């Protein structure tokens, strides 16, 4: 029994120490950044990321560090994208991403999308996965309240109203849960990538000696469809496809 307690205490202190470590790293990094030591700040932020910890703010700050150090446009875009994956409603990350995008060389036309799809995505992106999950729980609680009201309501019309509200809240609960699951799937999905090397050529088939199709530059966002060894099959937002080497891109 004593042994188990000791182990539990040990595990908890390890977690606490680690959390404290990340906190002090974070504060030190913010301090360094404000003093203009971008390189030092970046190392600290990356150390936090190296502890397998993540948050939208962390990715956003790393993106800022890369942007400020200059010459790492691709990395900056990558980390802003990661921050937005983590929290699609992160306004600062969206603003900085659009600024970083202004400096990328490739201009790619996007295929027009059905307006409802855009709306649905924008609605989903207005909150993070966790927030949607909390919404689902809140609606679930409202369903319960409505059902209680329906059961013990004194007047007939109020009870009818409570019943219809229970149905509405139930639908809201399910759609919020769906949004949350979809947002998490989107965040976890490894289907996006950013070009990291200054210039890379996309070829028609994996392996050497293939026909070069087009040339991409640092900071361009791609969709990853497939992978084969050292090669990724990618698709541009205008629909063009090709293969490129894994070392030239980084998965968001």
């Amino acid at each position: 029994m004593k042994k188990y307690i000791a182990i539990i205490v040990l595990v908890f202190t390890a977690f606490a120490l680690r959390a404290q470590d990340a906190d002090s790293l974070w504060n030190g990094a913010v301090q360094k950044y404000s003093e203009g030591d971008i390189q030092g700040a970046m190392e600290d932020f990356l150390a936090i990321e190296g502890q397998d910890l993540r948050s939208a703010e962390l990715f956003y700050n790393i993106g800022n560090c890369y942007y400020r150090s200059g010459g790492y446009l691709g990395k900056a875009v990558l980390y802003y994208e990661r921050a937005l994956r983590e929290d699609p409603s992160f306004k600062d990350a969206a603003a900085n991403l659009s600024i970083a995008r202004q400096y990328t060389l490739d201009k790619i036309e996007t295929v027009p999308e059905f307006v409802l799809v855009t709306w649905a995505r924008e609605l989903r992106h207005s909150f993070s996965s966790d927030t949607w999950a909390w919404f689902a729980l809140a609606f679930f609680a409202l369903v319960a309240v409505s059902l209680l009201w329906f059961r013990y309501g004194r007047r007939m019309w109020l009870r009818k109203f409570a019943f219809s509200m229970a149905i509405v809240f139930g639908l809201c609960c399910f759609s919020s849960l769906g949004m949350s699951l979809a947002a998490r799937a989107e965040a976890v999905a490894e289907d996006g990538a950013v070009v990291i090397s200054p210039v890379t050529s996309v070829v028609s088939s994996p392996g050497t000696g293939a026909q070069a199709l087009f040339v991409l530059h640092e900071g361009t966002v791609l969709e990853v469809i497939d992978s084969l060894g050292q090669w990724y099959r990618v698709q541009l937002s205008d629909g063009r496809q090709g293969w490129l080497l894994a070392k030239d891109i980084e998965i968001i």
Partner: protein
Amino acid sequence: MKRIGSLIIAFAASLLLPLNAAAQGLRVEAPTVVSLDEAFNVQYIASGKVKEFFKPEFEDFHVLAGPTSSTMNSIQFVNGKRSQTYEVTYTYVLQAKSTGKFTIPSASADVAGKVQSSGTRSIEVVASGQQPQSSPSQESSSGGSSYASAGELMLKLQLSKTSVVKGEPIIATLKLYARNAAISGFEDVTFPTFEGFWSQEIEAPQNINFERENVGGQIYDAALLRRYMLLPQQSGQISIDPAEIICLLQVRAQNSQRGRSIFDDFFDSGYQTVRRRVATDKINVNVRALPDGAPADFTGGVGDLNMTVRLSKDSLKAHEAGSLIVTISGTGNLSMVDAPKINFPPDFEVYDIKKTDNVKAGRSGLSGTRTFEYPFIPRSAGDFTMEPVTLSYYNIKGGRYLKLSSDPIPVKVARSEGTDASVFKEGGINKQSVRSLGEDIRYISTSAGRLRRSGDSFVSSPWMWITAMLIVAAYVAVRLIVGKVETRRADVAGGRRRKALKVAKARLKKANSYLAQGLGTAFIEELHKALIGYVADKLTIAPADLDRDTIREKLLERGSSQEAIEGLFALLDECEYARYAPPGTHEALDSKYQTALKVIADLED
């Protein structure tokens, strides 16, 4: 009086004395290059009257003759001004003992009461078998030389450097070299165009003076034609086009064997003019680009520069024009330096930059100042501080970029007196939208947010299910609690019904005790309460809602007999009647008590 006399004497003396007394001194003149077997002149020239001449000691030279002295006195009137030159020249004829570089020693002389020293002159002695001419004009006049060739001519463009960085000044010297040649004139002179360079003539002598120069052990008469300063404008290999010149040479005629008449000899001097074209070689200059990593505030300056920044006025008023003056001084490619970029505070209207150059081209490049004037008009009052003006330039000596920076410049703008008139004009002020001065990324987030493991999200996590379960549990709990409360409420009615007889009996007992004490009214009151309370409890209706019809209906529902109900109503009527009439005798009251017991017992069945 005495004073005026002395003034007059001084004035007279000033008229008599040589005017260039200030330029008194002793100098030495000698050729720079001589050949070993050549007799040459060395002259010590004193300007002013010489009292005594101290002879120099020539150790490396044979003194063939001298010193011979000659004096020269010239008086000039130019525009009514009289100037007099008086010179005494001591001439030595020397011959060198051996080849090499030597020094003509210094002589000294007592010139107008002051001992002056001439200074030394360096001289180079070359081993040349030929007797060179001291000057082409001499040669043409002496004319008796035996050779008929036109002599040697060379045109050379000498560069101070052939490998430079972009913007580094190069001095190019165009010289004509002649040997044994009698040059009588020039035709068709083509100077190089210096494409790829910014060029400026430093020297362009009107008279061409030949000076001796040693070129590869040969003595040439060299004349400076032009001297340029070049600033390379582009990097890479730049070639300079050749310069060309056609010299007119006097050559002794070769056709003297022909039968010559006396007239030929009289009219024909025996010389003819020959045209000779000479050109420089093509010269390549290797211009390196400036190293990478130029700072953002580099505007093309190369050399050694300084910068001063000032405002035209210390204090300004709003809507009043002022200017910021940036002066760049030093040596280098001053004419190539662009204006540094200055960030004026917002609400300053800035106009076109005015450039003023005060630049001299010299041997070390351009030197002087270049002034940029930034006119501006502040449109609002306040204390502003302009960011320091910075300018980077490439320092050739250090081989790196150096940064010049001024202090932050405070600008005080006072409110203008005319503010009311100019700002609050009719029709209101001009609204201006908030201008974006620049675009930059937003600042980092200072709070860490919720740091968590990767792949760790709230949805479908145990915590979410636990929360959902808690909600379900809460729902179930509410249902259970509410249900229990309902049954308890139902029990209250049953309990009341069950206790109805007990309560009625207690009340009847109390009424009986009133009867024993002889309190008739209180007895009737209590009896009535016992009956009404019993019925209300039994039927679980509020006593206020009691009326005969409800009671009858409810009691019939409960299955009570008609006689019992009639008995109850009769007793209630009697009680109500007795409350407003004298209570009656003890016996009557007692019979009422007995009737009440019977009615309750009947209803209970």
